[in-house]
């Protein structure tokens, strides 16, 4: 089904960047539709406490995300969530987005704010034992592993800090990391190294998760020596960073080698009328505040583009 409406702006993504853009464009009386593959709020709603958002003393990410959603809707922004984007045409003057293989929406401009998602290992058994030994959240699932042996995968701050935190429950934590050094801060590395419950398998990668009903072991390969070993564990926590949700835009809009959207200071991509914002663009810092700033700039740039189109259309009709 193709909607007859041509929106002024379609925003792909309803995280902090997408919602901020939606607030600005809809408040500027531009007809705005946000199409979102996940839950509105994105990574923001997954943050337990936000204490450094200016003007807000302390709140949960969920509450802040909910308020942003309400604000956008109060200005007339439409939000459709938990859908699949199946096709896009961003290069035509009127841009189109197809969702769920059936519904097509059109707009003068598109803001790409698809955010990021936790990176998975993508090894055999990972999906099978999710929730039955494999987890991506120590706060959520740590207490299921009281007095059990577990693995933590990763070498950044999240992996190191969560490994230390998990020693409150687990009898032994083995950190499996693909490099010979960690990427985390010095204090996080020191805390992990000084913890007697933590052991290390450096330059190693998990090849497979093994078990019957629940996770029972992991097959780990040392990438330098090629040696493989089975580590008996009842749990594995995976913290190997985030990937931008831009795979769909490969060959559509310009990305760098990490899949990050390339934008200029006004959040313009290489396609006229298409803007990028939030965690999926190339930038050094990923915070709620930077996402909101990106969304604001993208919205104002998109508004300028739409107003220019409308002015030209008016001139033509009056000529």
């Amino acid at each position: 089904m193709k909607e007859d409406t041509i929106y002024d702006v379609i925003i792909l993504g309803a995280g902090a960047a997408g919602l901020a853009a939606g607030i600005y464009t809809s408040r500027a009386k531009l007809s705005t539709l946000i199409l979102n593959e996940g839950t509105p709020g994105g990574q923001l709603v997954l943050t337990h406490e936000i204490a450094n958002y200016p003007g807000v003393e302390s709140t949960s990410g969920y509450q802040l995300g909910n308020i942003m959603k309400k604000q956008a809707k109060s200005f007339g922004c439409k939000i459709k969530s938990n859908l699949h984007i199946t096709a896009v045409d961003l290069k035509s003057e009127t841009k189109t987005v197809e969702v769920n293989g059936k519904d097509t929406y059109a707009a003068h401009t598109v803001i790409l704010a698809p955010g990021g998602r936790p990176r998975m290992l993508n090894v055999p058994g990972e999906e099978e034992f999710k929730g039955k030994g494999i987890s991506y959240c120590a706060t959520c699932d740590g207490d299921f592993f009281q007095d059990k042996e577990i693995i933590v995968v990763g070498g950044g701050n999240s992996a190191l800090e969560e490994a230390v935190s998990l020693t409150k429950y687990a009898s032994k934590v083995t950190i499996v990391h693909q490099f010979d050094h960690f990427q985390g801060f010095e204090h996080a590395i020191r805390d992990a190294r000084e913890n007697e419950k933590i052991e290390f398998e450096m330059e190693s990668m998990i090849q497979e998760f093994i078990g019957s009903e629940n996770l029972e072991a992991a097959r780990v390969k040392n990438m330098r020596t090629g040696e493989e070993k089975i580590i008996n564990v009842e749990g594995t926590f995976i913290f190997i960073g985030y990937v931008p949700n831009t795979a769909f835009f490969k060959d559509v809009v310009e990305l760098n080698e990490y899949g990050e959207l390339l934008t200029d200071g006004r959040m313009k991509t290489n396609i006229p009328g298409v803007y990028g914002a939030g965690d999926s663009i190339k930038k050094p810092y990923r915070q709620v505040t930077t996402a909101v700033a990106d969304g604001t700039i993208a919205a104002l740039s998109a508004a300028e583009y739409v107003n220019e189109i409308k002015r030209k259309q008016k001139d033509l009709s009056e000529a």
Partner: protein
Amino acid sequence: MLQTNLKHIMTADEHQKFIEENDNVMICCGRMGPMCIPVYGIMEELEDDYTHVTFADMEFDNPEAAVIRNAPECRGFMGLPFTVYYKNGKLVKATSSIQSMDQVTAILNEQFGEPK
């Protein structure tokens, strides 16, 4: 109490009444954590379409949630949320950890039928 827009079940008695009074029920039992929140969001999204299903949440750390935590169908679960589905008062399906929209709708369609 969980900070969602879903109906909150607070006690075991309320849970029992809820599954007896509604033919098709989906309850998500979790915390306000990154694995649980996406499932609450999916449920909120589906409430308008799946009018033949009644949705609710229950706080995992509430002692009364033992009625879900200790269900035989949840034995061996080691990831939040525990999501349980009841048909005519009987637990017909349970999942552990985060689920996608496709996974949830597949279960709803299989157990309770697609929305009209």
